[in-house]
């Protein structure tokens, strides 16, 4: 099964990175014996031993802090924070240290730490298990922020993240964990960091998405054909660094854009995208940049989460306002 789903691709990437570089260590809550609550680290302890894949006490700041200390000594820790909302206790360590140590020490002490965060909703979970917290990360200079939408990218981007000298917050869309890949992810070429990919060409408008919103955007683009709209889909993949050139090229060419993400809209990453496009592509815009996002509410109980999340209808509603033809 390894390699055939996004979760499997992450597992393969970890395994291959650990095999390739003995400085890579994997730890976090339940990642050892259990193989993680999503089984993403399954088998790593058996294969590499408890020294290189181990469980920790329940202390997220401690996990992050220990990873920082290990990186100071030359290791390449990949830690898992079990769910998005359980990354919050580590916030100070991330913002005040992980993001800043390289800059603080003028490059002498870089921290090649990867923080894996299963994020987002759509999995029918109880409170605190479905947050999307990427906006906090992107606004913190010094962090790289990745989020794959396919198994292939999950593999390639995680390998790139582990190889990177910079700290990376690696947001894994948990509702895509079990989506099957079309090809063997491990065979895909590693995408250079900071490149968006056009998942679908289109002439009327471009849907800009990342992580769990990418399949929604693709579905919406397919559905839009019946309305006679030809929509492109751009998957950002890395939010920091952001592929501003591709975004501007595509939007300038097409003239209309809708940003789609799961997190609450207000102050979300979609705001940066819309602002950026407004600033850089003003003259080429035929319509305002629309945002289709989660509602501006705390993540709702699982029974109602579909009313909160962006969906095809909402994307099409937004597209309908763009005055295409």
């Amino acid at each position: 099964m390894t390699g055939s789903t996004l979760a499997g691709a992450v597992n393969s990437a970890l395994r291959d990175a650990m095999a390739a570089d003995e400085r890579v260590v994997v730890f976090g809550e339940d990642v050892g014996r259990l193989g993680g609550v999503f089984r993403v680290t399954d088998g790593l302890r058996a294969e590499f031993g408890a020294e290189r894949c181990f469980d920790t006490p329940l202390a997220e700041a401690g996990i992050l802090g220990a990873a920082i200390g290990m990186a100071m000594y030359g290791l390449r820790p990949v830690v898992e924070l079990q769910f998005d909302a359980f990354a919050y206790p580590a916030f100070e360590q991330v913002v005040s240290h992980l993001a800043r140590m390289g800059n603080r020490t003028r490059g002498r002490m870089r921290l090649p730490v990867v923080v894996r965060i299963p994020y987002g909703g759509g999995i029918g979970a109880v409170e605190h298990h479905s947050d999307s917290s990427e906006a906090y990360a992107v606004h913190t200079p010094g962090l790289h922020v990745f989020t794959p939408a396919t198994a292939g990218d999950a593999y390639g981007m995680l390998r790139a993240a582990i190889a990177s000298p910079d700290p990376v917050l690696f947001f894994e869309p948990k509702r895509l964990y079990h989506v099957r890949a079309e090809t063997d992810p491990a065979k895909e070429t590693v995408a250079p960091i900071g490149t968006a990919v056009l998942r679908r060409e289109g002439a009327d408008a471009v849907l800009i998405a990342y992580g769990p919103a990418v399949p929604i955007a693709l579905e919406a683009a397919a559905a839009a054909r019946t309305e006679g709209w030809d929509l492109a889909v751009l998957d950002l993949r890395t939010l920091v660094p952001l592929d501003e050139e591709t975004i501007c090229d595509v939007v300038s060419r097409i003239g209309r854009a809708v940003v789609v993400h799961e997190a609450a809209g207000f102050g979300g990453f979609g705001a940066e995208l819309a602002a950026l496009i407004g600033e850089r592509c003003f003259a080429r815009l035929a319509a305002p940049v629309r945002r289709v996002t989660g509602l501006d509410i705390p993540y709702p109980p699982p029974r109602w989460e579909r009313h909160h999340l962006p969906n095809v209808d909402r994307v099409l509603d937004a597209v309908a306002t763009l005055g295409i033809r």
Partner: protein
Amino acid sequence: MSAPEMFLDADGTQIGAIPADLLDPETLVETHHALVLARRFDMQAGVLARQGRLVVYPSALGQEACQVGAVLALEPEDWFFPTYRDSMAMVVRGIDPVEVLTPQRGDRHCGHDPYEHRTAPPCTPLATQLPHAVGLAMAARSRGDRLAVLAFCGDGASSEGDFHEALNFAAVYQAPVVFLVQNNQYAISVPFREQTRAASLAAKADGYGMPGRRIDGNDVLMVRHAVGEALAAARAGAGPALIEAVTYRMGPHTTADDPSRYRDPEEERLWAARDPLARFGAFLRERGTLTEIVEKAAEADAEALADDLRARLEQEPVFDPADLFEHVYAEPTQRLRAQAAYLRAQMDAEHAAAEAAAEGARR
């Protein structure tokens, strides 16, 4: 490591002097009744989760003595701060079982009114409820109200920074809080021995300057006694206390978990022999308190509870879109009102489309 304090050994044989008030027959019967109902509730909830009526259920099978003993020690004016694991305790506290399971049913984050039962919403982010308990206790004390606060957490949660900050605050301000750690030997897959190197969790109390106690968490009388003493001391102004109740999570972490990946069934059998209900039942039988009438009454009430739970959870919860927006702030912002209107329109359109389709089908 010496044995935790207990009144009854694993067979239910009395091995310590039990205070007279605990041996009052009414008290004993009440305790037994609660244990039986708690377990029945827990089993039923597990079944409902496996049937998909609940999105998940974290059972506390094996921890009934903690859940029942501690809550029975509370006075109505006291406050209680449970975790996601403490549904049984909430039922014992008098909260409608359907309200208790509402978060797991998935239609609301909290089913009960915290003020009605002086019970906080069950808390998921580990140890984060502990400083709330302390703050509430500080507030009550500053108002001159004589009450105590009981806060639960797990062995794993004791590793979180919030545990430390809360216990320190409680001691510094001599807040009337009793911290009960249910050491059920596991934090999901991580065994207690990997959670800390301390001889016991009770050993942490000294570092905060508060009394600490390590008790057998499968001995319901000991739990009720130790928690009762600590609550009484707290109410009387003697400050906080830490109690470690040594117990065992007999089931999986939640209905989504598979313990065979990380623990030996032999261990489960070992602990099954220390079952809190069997132990207390043997003791009561030995004393002659557990008559057939008493036993049957408890079983009948337990079945009634389970029947009621099943029946009421059969019903699909009704969705009111206003629910999503109404309580984010005391007054919804303009932005939220606009989003509510949009959702309403979207639902109306879907509804109309469905009607039209049905209409079409009928023709």
